[in-house]
């Protein structure tokens, strides 16, 4: 089975700075990591390869240093990877990002399955996976927590929704976005880390993927971030520090009164 795993490099810390002019993220000085939710997509791809054979290719759009994310994916078991990096790609929203990734996948051509993480922990949209599938006009399913069965021309998968699990049969080639419940991502082995270090990662630009330049980057994005603000998180609530049994009981009574006051009970 030929598998493509699109991944995103995200900032490690939560103290991210935003560019007040463009409204996009300032990535300088912040340790980049693979989006934690993409590790499940990588692991599922590698597990499938180990089970039934095939190859897994990591794909990422980002700055040059996103090569590190691809190398880490290879260290986890991906066979190779491709970086999409160009000034023209910068500032893309989910529409323009999914366009570029889908063009790259068209260029790769031969694939049976695309596996994405549920969403990235920075942008937190979950829109790029369904977007890629729509650009490619292939079936897709979101929030997959289990691949139940691999059939000749389809997959049987389990999809986690609010009140239970749907069992779906989906025609291949297709795209799945997977949730954390699906597996336990492995740590890269030393041997694979060494291997990853040696692998040359091709870097593709707009011409390599025959992209329509008007669909790229900030210019090609239908949405605009116009303002960034830091929400006030402190609610200045009531804080009780009971010192003995009686005070604890009084505190719990106040808590119950709070609930009654809010008509919760």
């Amino acid at each position, binding site marked *: 089975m030929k598998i493509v795993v699109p991944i995103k490099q995200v900032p490690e810390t*939560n*103290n*991210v700075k935003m560019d007040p002019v463009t409204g996009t*993220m300032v990535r300088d000085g912040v340790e980049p990591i693979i989006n*934690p939710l993409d590790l499940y997509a990588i692991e599922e791809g590698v597990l499938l390869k180990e089970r039934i054979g095939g190859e897994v290719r990591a794909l990422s759009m980002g700055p040059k240093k996103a090569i590190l994310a691809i190398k880490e994916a290879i260290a986890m078991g991906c066979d190779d990877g491709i970086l999409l990096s160009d000034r023209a790609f910068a500032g893309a*929203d*989910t*529409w323009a990002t*999914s366009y570029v990734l889908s063009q790259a996948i068209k260029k790769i051509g031969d694939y049976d399955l695309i596996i994405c993480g549920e969403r990235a922990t920075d*942008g*937190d949209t*979950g*829109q790029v996976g*369904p*977007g890629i599938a*729509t*650009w490619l006009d292939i*079936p897709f*399913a979101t*929030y997959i927590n289990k691949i139940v069965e691999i059939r000749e021309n389809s997959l049987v998968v389990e999809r*986690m*929704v*609010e*009140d*239970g*699990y749907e*069992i*779906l049969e989906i025609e291949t080639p297709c795209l799945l976005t997977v949730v*954390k419940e699906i597996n336990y991502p492995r740590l890269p082995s030393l041997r694979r880390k060494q291997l990853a270090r040696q692998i040359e990662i091709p870097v593709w630009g707009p011409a390599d993927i025959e992209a329509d330049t008007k669909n790229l980057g900030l210019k090609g994005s*239908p949405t*605009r*971030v*116009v*303002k*960034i*603000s*830091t*929400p006030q*998180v*402190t*609610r200045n*609530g*009531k*804080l*009780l*520090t*009971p010192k003995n*049994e009686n005070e*604890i009981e009084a*505190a*719990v*009574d*106040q*808590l*119950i009164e*709070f*609930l009654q006051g*809010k008509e*919760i*009970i």
Partner: protein
Amino acid sequence: MSYKGVWILGEQEAGNIKSVSYELLKRGRELADKLGVELTAVMLGKKMARERLQELVYRGADKVIVVEDPALEYFLPDPYVNAMEILINRHRPEILIASATSTGRTVAPALAIRCNTGLTADCTGLDIDAENGNLIQTRPAIGGNILATIRTPNHRPQMATVRPHSNKPLDPDRHRTGRIINESVDPALLKSRTKRLEFKKNEDAGSNIQDAEIVIAGGKGFKKEENFRILHEVAALLGGAVGATRDAVDLGWATYPHQVGLSGKTISPKLYMGIGISGSVQHLAGIKTSENIIAVNNDPEAQIFRVADFGIVGDLFEVLPLIKQKLQAIKKQ
């Protein structure tokens, strides 16, 4: 033909309209009134009873567009996206909002690509720019550390998904009138490349943390799995669901559907109670938009107290049994 009107995409299950639809109507009503345009609710389903659709009118819709087809019984991407694309091209609304549920967050991004327009995910605020009538979309990002204001200046419809429970539904007004219009879509275009074989409902009723009005969550402070039992008992007394931190899930005290936070679910219940939870940035990102937050923790410096409306600094093993006892006493009355 220009784009006009505000649409909401309603959700149904077995022909019953889900309450997120009414929440969307409240948002949609505000936008439509500011723009001075009609508010339309779109319902896709196998068969929708007239009186159920009428409820959408009572709760704010001027018009209900309903498409009935066996292929639309359950949510599946192909028929839903195709039907919506056809309706949008037919009527050209200027705004379309859907709920940020597993359905809305799946159909909307595909639809945005099809309609060549922008989409803003999981909004907590929607407004209209008085100057140019553009939709102003506000959403938390980067773990809730920032609020981003986003516009879709040149593409129509402007699309957004709205965080469930981030606002109340509109109360019904039985005097409201509106039109209910059945529209047809060529069944050939509703073919799905995905089949739904089966549905396994969660037996574990306490795990539907996204739909619950009350969520009581536990973290590492519980020390071991057995201690989580009381959390379930208190949740049952409150008629709520049980949430858990990532640590508690990783330790196997609760399953993943219970996980609240950046790598779990984002929730906005009426009441969130965090017990034995210090409040990591990742966890707080998942609860910040809750209406009321109560915290119990033995560490007065715990971050969760910063976002709490009511907090008790104390040993959860002393406080929680007392809470349980008092709730039981109230129940008996």
